[in-house]
């Protein structure tokens, strides 16, 4: 057998193994979470002054169980929907640092949209005010309009208080939310989904972080 044949056979074996591992690989069998696709890039984009970040994983189950779920649902004004919005959904909180100082958080949630899952991320300062709004994923013919920075800018400066009276069932904005314009009236369902996701995101962050600041890390900032 020539050297060429041996290496060809070896290459074939490696390829076959690679295929098999890919095809047969299993993934974690938990509820699906919401992470930034490329945290190194996305964190800088959402927090240009950041120099590093830490990642914290939590869930309603971990932080307060059934009692917390009831609280979150009550504040949201609607029970968690469907089989994908559950107590064990893992949430990823990015703690953002500028040098050694913590300057804010980034947190994303999944939300059911008209044609697929929507992932809404919020960049929040230490008081819970929205500094940035980012729809990471949305399947819609009008997704580009809703993902546009102009739409996101309308959320900057809002806090959980501004969403307190937002009725996620009727989807009718009130108070400061009335100024938020839907750039794609044809995609009203997805617009409402984005608002619901924002309210859910803020409530979760309030329950996970702002009401229990000490639980989260306050140590030295990690290096990027």
């Amino acid at each position: 057998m020539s050297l060429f044949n041996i290496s060809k056979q070896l290459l074939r074996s490696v390829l076959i193994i690679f295929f098999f591992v890919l095809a047969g690989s299993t993934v974690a069998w938990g509820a699906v979470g919401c992470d930034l696709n490329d945290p190194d890039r996305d964190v800088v984009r959402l927090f240009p002054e950041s120099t590093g970040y830490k990642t914290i994983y939590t869930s309603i189950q971990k932080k307060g169980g059934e009692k917390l779920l009831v609280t979150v649902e009550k504040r949201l004004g609607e029970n968690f929907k469907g089989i994908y919005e559950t107590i064990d959904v893992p949430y990823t909180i990015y703690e953002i640092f500028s040098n050694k100082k913590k300057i804010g958080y980034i947190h994303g949630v999944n939300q059911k949209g008209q044609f697929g899952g929507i992932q809404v991320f919020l960049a929040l300062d230490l008081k819970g005010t929205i500094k940035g709004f980012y729809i990471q994923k949305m399947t819609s013919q009008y997704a580009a309009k809703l993902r546009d920075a102009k739409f996101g800018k309308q959320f900057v400066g809002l806090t959980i208080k501004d969403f307190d009276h937002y009725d996620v069932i009727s989807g009718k904005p009130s108070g400061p939310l009335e100024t938020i314009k839907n750039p794609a009236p044809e995609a009203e369902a997805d617009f409402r989904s984005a608002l619901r996701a924002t309210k859910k995101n803020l409530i979760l962050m309030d329950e996970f972080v702002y009401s229990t600041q000490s639980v989260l890390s306050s140590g030295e900032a990690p290096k990027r």
Partner: protein
Amino acid sequence: MITKFQVAYKNLWRKKVRSILTVIGIALSAWVLISLLGFNRGYENSLNKDIDNMGFQLMIMAKGCPYEAATLMLKGGTGLRYMDESIMKKITSEPEVDKITPILMSAVFDPNKGESGGIAAYFGVEPASFAAVKPFLKFKTGKWFTDLNAYEVVMGFEAAELEQREVGDMILMPDKNVQFKVVGILERTGTQDDGTIFVPLKTLQKIFNRPTEITTIGIKLKKGMDSTRLEDKLYQLPDVQIVSLEQVKQTIMKLISTAKIMVLSIAIIAILIAMVGVINTILTSVWERFQEIGILKTIGAMPRDIFLLIWMETLILCTMGGLLGVILALILSRVTDILIRRVLPYAPGGGLVVIDLKLVLVTMFGIIFIGLVSGIYPAWKAGRIRPLEAIRGEGGK
């Protein structure tokens, strides 16, 4: 009347620590041996199950076409090659073929996935033939398409979870802007099907303007059929490549066999050490009871009786050690499983260490046999003790 067994048992019990240590030595060897044999069987069973879960043993693609969705994604949705579905007629007529299913893989660019967009992949399938080669696919909710030309999708469990879809929801194919109704969500399978969106083959062919083309053919062989013969014939077809899952299995088994040989060597060394331990324990016990054996002989014990008595001790040690080893192996099989999984580069799903009654009996028989062989020399030595020398205390020095 006291039996030989009782005498042998009491003799061993006189030196508890030594006997217990010998039993532990044998038990450890038995544990390693049974775990290894259990792994040998379990790994192959699990691998076979994983391969069966893929539904087909052979896949035919146009030359250069990615094998499956993951590779397609890695290639950015490009590189698909197509073959005409008429090729299926030639394959179906082969005697080795049990079932066959056509697949059309397609990918579209979704600009609204992340910052720079992403790829969404779709599998066009014929429900009847696809379900036949993958009978393990079960619906969590809903069912297959109502029509072969319907604008409907069946989603793998994780695809549905990610897209937050339930039966009755709509889904949009980006780029093409085609809407589909979700008619079924599959249960989790642990395979790539979990992340797949299935569309009726004809519908997908129409959307991508490839009315008679497919990318993959999955072939399920008849039971006991040799895939290599069929592979040789299929290689005669123009411009196709064949991936044999039997080949995949063989390659993995070859890689694993190296690890198995190493563990088997360790098991053999452990057994040899245990054998030496048994010989040492029994021989020491014989020397310690040199005078006692001499007295037994003077009161009428024949060499055969002494031989059997000493052999009985070996038998007791080995049986106890073997039983303890089996119990250890049964209790720790899960731990062994986890440890093996950490060491091996690829481990299939399911139990890697399978211990059944047959394996237990084979191991017990093997341990007792090896023990008895180890006991021959000390027993023979004891049987040959001369009573007079023993009473004088000469031979044991």
